[in-house]
């Protein structure tokens, strides 16, 4: 069944049709939530909240990119969660990886000799990028994740971020510049093959 039919059925109260949409988009939505939130537990909460809000507000969907509409809902859920965190700050006791599993040996404690070189470097690079993403203001983070991680074009990203096209363009450039400065020291630690890959 195509997406529009599922959306139409869900708009008429068919929860089963909506759950099929959930299964189709949950990785995308969770990735967005995780890249914005930077940790699994809150990303899961934001994802669940986003789908509940999406179902309740499905009558407001007027066509267009369903993906962008969902991205906007999950982005707003993340902003709400970030505001709650700011009111009640908490520090996780144990670090977790991208998949929510507790990291027994965090990045700063990794011995590269324990892992194959490529895997160790890739993991370290991902951690570094996520750390630099977390340092960005949420608005910049959202745009750069939408465009560079989710692969949206500017128009779709503007729709998902709820911002004008010019604002998206500007935020994206500034976010990339900040990430570049954040990652600059890290490039020197990468093996030459990765540096060349980046330049290619």
């Amino acid at each position, binding site marked *: 069944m195509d997406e529009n039919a599922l959306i139409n059925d869900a708009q008429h109260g068919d929860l089963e049709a909506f*759950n099929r949409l959930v299964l189709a988009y*949950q990785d995308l939505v*969770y990735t967005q939530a995780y890249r914005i939130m930077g940790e699994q537990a809150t990303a899961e909460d934001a994802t669940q909240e986003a789908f509940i809000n999406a179902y309740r507000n499905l009558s407001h969907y007027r066509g267009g990119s369903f993906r962008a509409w969902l991205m906007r809902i999950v982005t707003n859920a993340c902003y709400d969660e970030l505001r709650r965190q700011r009111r009640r700050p908490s520090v996780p006791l144990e670090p977790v990886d991208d998949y929510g599993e507790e990291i027994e040996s965090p990045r700063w404690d990794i011995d590269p000799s324990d892992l194959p070189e490529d895997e160790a470097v890739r993991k370290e690079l*991902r951690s570094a990028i996520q750390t630099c993403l977390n340092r960005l203001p949420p608005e910049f983070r959202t745009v750069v994740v939408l465009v560079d991680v989710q692969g949206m*074009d500017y128009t779709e990203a503007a729709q998902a971020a709820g911002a004008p096209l010019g604002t998206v363009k500007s935020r994206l450039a500034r976010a990339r510049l900040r*990430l*570049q400065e954040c990652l600059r020291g890290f490039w020197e630690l990468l093996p030459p093959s990765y540096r060349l890959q*980046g330049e290619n």
Partner: protein
Amino acid sequence: MKPLSPHDWETLSAYLDGELSSQEKARLEARLWKDASLRNALDELGRTRLALRNLPRLRAPRNFTLSRKMVAVKPAPRLYPFFGFASALATVFLLVVLLMDFLGFGEPARPPVALMQLTQTAIQVAAERNITPAEESLPAPTEAIAASQLAAPPPEATPASPEMPMAKRAASEETALPTETPVVAEEGLALKMVAPETETPADSGEATPTDPALREGISSVEVATDTIQVEEATPAPTETPVFTETQWPTETVTLTETASPTPSPIPTATDTPTPEIIASETATEAPLLATAVAALPPTPLPTQSALTSAEVRPTTLQWAEGGLAAFALLSGLLGLALYLWRRRS
């Protein structure tokens, strides 16, 4: 190396995403060909972008499918709509009460404050002039006189020669005045006023115009003839002003009412001609308005403080307005607080 401007970084970023127009793209490529630092900046930005794009898409750690229980709408707190409804209802009642107050419903029956104040003024003026009412009881002025006096503009005292006989004087005034309606001197309307010898400028042979304050007081008494029984007035005590017939010729006051260009609102203008009130010493049976003034009982007059307190005291409608406004405000604030609390939670 010249640092790049924010606009340059924005252009480079859009160039990497293929979001520049052909013209912008050609202009930037021309700069890149010449400027090595710009090329380095583009390379570094491209590397960052590539690293971000190489991030793997994460797999959801679990399914986020929804159940009926999860999407059930939470019932709103019961008090919130109640307070909202109560506030709206109180506002509606407040508007109704305000409207009633505006239209004058529910006003308590108050004494004619302005009238009594005017009467008091008349008494004071009369007392200052040391005028005493006549010894004999005199009939009260008729309502027609009162109405005509009330309707007409304040009469002007016409100076007249003291040597001229009263009737002749009246006649001369009647002919001299350019009135449209005939001026009638009625014997019954004659007003006799005598001022003390010491205060009377009659020795000099000049007629004194009627005191405006006194006339105002007399008019107010005439207005009050509906409620004040002048006929029952007993001779006033010696301290009250007294009008005597014998002392009158020294000061003759002629109250002339002429027809004004604008029609008088009182129907007596057509039924009876506009009266000319002439103080005459021959009109012994004429009603003495000043006697009525003097005959007013002094005690029932409200004092100034009593009048003020009567005006300040809120009426039932004002109490209702205050109560409803307070209730509407309180319930509205409570409803708003509950609403905000619900949103926060």
